[in-house]
């Protein structure tokens, strides 16, 4: 059970996040989970006065997600991390490490997917 949960879509994401920012919310982090069938859940956590608000976005892993690093600069590290671990592309990332934030060239698997060994990285 997650309190204060709002469902968002790819189109409404940046708008909702900007609304959070103007509401004076502090961005905590996002959590990405592979839910099978090539889909992933990304939950954006925001905090204001010790109360969490969560935006839930369900995405296809092969489609790019709009980056919110333009709204919250701090999002860039988290988006790069998700890019490393799930190979989800983010559009408009202010500083793109290109899957090299944590991983080196030797790692060719996509680590956090459930069927890691069966999957090959996409070019």
């Amino acid at each position, binding site marked *: 059970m997650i309190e204060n949960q709002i469902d968002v879509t790819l189109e409404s994401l940046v708008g909702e996040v900007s609304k959070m920012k103007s509401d004076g919310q502090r*961005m*905590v982090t996002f959590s990405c989970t592979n839910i099978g069938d090539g889909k992933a859940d990304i939950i954006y956590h925001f905090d204001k006065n010790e109360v*969490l608000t969560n935006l839930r976005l369900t995405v296809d892993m092969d489609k790019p997600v709009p980056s919110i690093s333009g709204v919250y600069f*701090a999002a860039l590290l988290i988006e790069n991390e998700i890019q490393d671990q799930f190979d989800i592309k983010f559009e408009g990332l202010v500083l793109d490490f290109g899957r090299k934030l*944590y*991983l080196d060239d030797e790692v060719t698997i996509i680590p956090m997917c*459930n069927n890691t060994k069966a999957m090959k990285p996409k070019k």
Partner: protein
Amino acid sequence: MARTIIPFGPQHPVLPEPLHVKLVVEDEIVQEAIPALGYVHRGLEKLAEIRDYHQMIQVVERVCGICSNIHSMCYCQGIEEIMGIEVPRRAEYLRTIWSELHRMHSHLLWLGLFADAFGFEALFMQFWRIRERIMDINEATTGSRVITSVNVVGGVRQDLTPEMCSWILSEVDTAVKEIKEIQNTILSDYTVCARTKGVGVLTKEQAYDFGAAGPTLRGSGVASDMRLLKYAAFDKIDFEPIVEPDGDCYARSTVRFRETLQSADLVKQAIAGLPQGDIAAPCKGNPEGEIITRVEQPRGECLYYIKGSGKKFLDRVRIRTPTFANIPPLLAMLPNCELADVPVIILSIDPCISCTER
């Protein structure tokens, strides 16, 4: 002036850990800082697929050796909340005692390293000498100095006897007395102030926008502390977050120094209020559902997102550690500082790289 790129780290005398920052400098003034992570990345979140939810306690404790107890406490709280386990009050108080002792030793460690960062080695030795008292308490009560492994799902593993409690109180009192003896040096010594006041300023708005956490946020005047969420025994303990308005390195070190003394007080309060009863509730079944839990670590807010699907193995454990949130603010502090101040500023966020990269 020509621009030069100076690499800082991954192996650097002031950093016990490999953090790499590329500094673009112009005439000894830093213009831009680009972080490069990945030297400690292990990928332990993935281990949730092959270790069951009891074994994961041992894994999350090793996210970071300095705040290991608080990591496992956060994880256990999450699992208990999913499974609806009522933790005995005594266990909650014991968790509070150990977590505050961990905060004390972590802050004393940091104060020492911080003193070392500007070359004050005698102060480093003093803080680490006092810290050994806290390590002794950890070793005597849990059996290990650093990774205590006291938390289990449903409660704790070890109990404290009344004699143990009074010994802890006297040790903490001695430690507080010794800390107060060097209070003047860390807070008002000329050399310390010269190196830390006005250095690496992070304004309140910047700290909030960049999502800073813990003492970095409180050092900039924002009263945000996850202990206000009243987890464990904090609902019965008198607690007020410590805030300093200035946002420079001096403010951040003052916050941590005052928190050390505050934690000693919290340990005393928790021992005074320690109720009788069981120390662990039985745990049956497997977790099913999602949960977000947050606790306050020595470095700031720590968030766990746990998802289980009724199996022995969890679907996802997402760990967001405080240093991860404090790296963007660091990038805002570094521009326009002198190259010689870089170690002081980097240490002022209390970087824990093994937390950051997991």
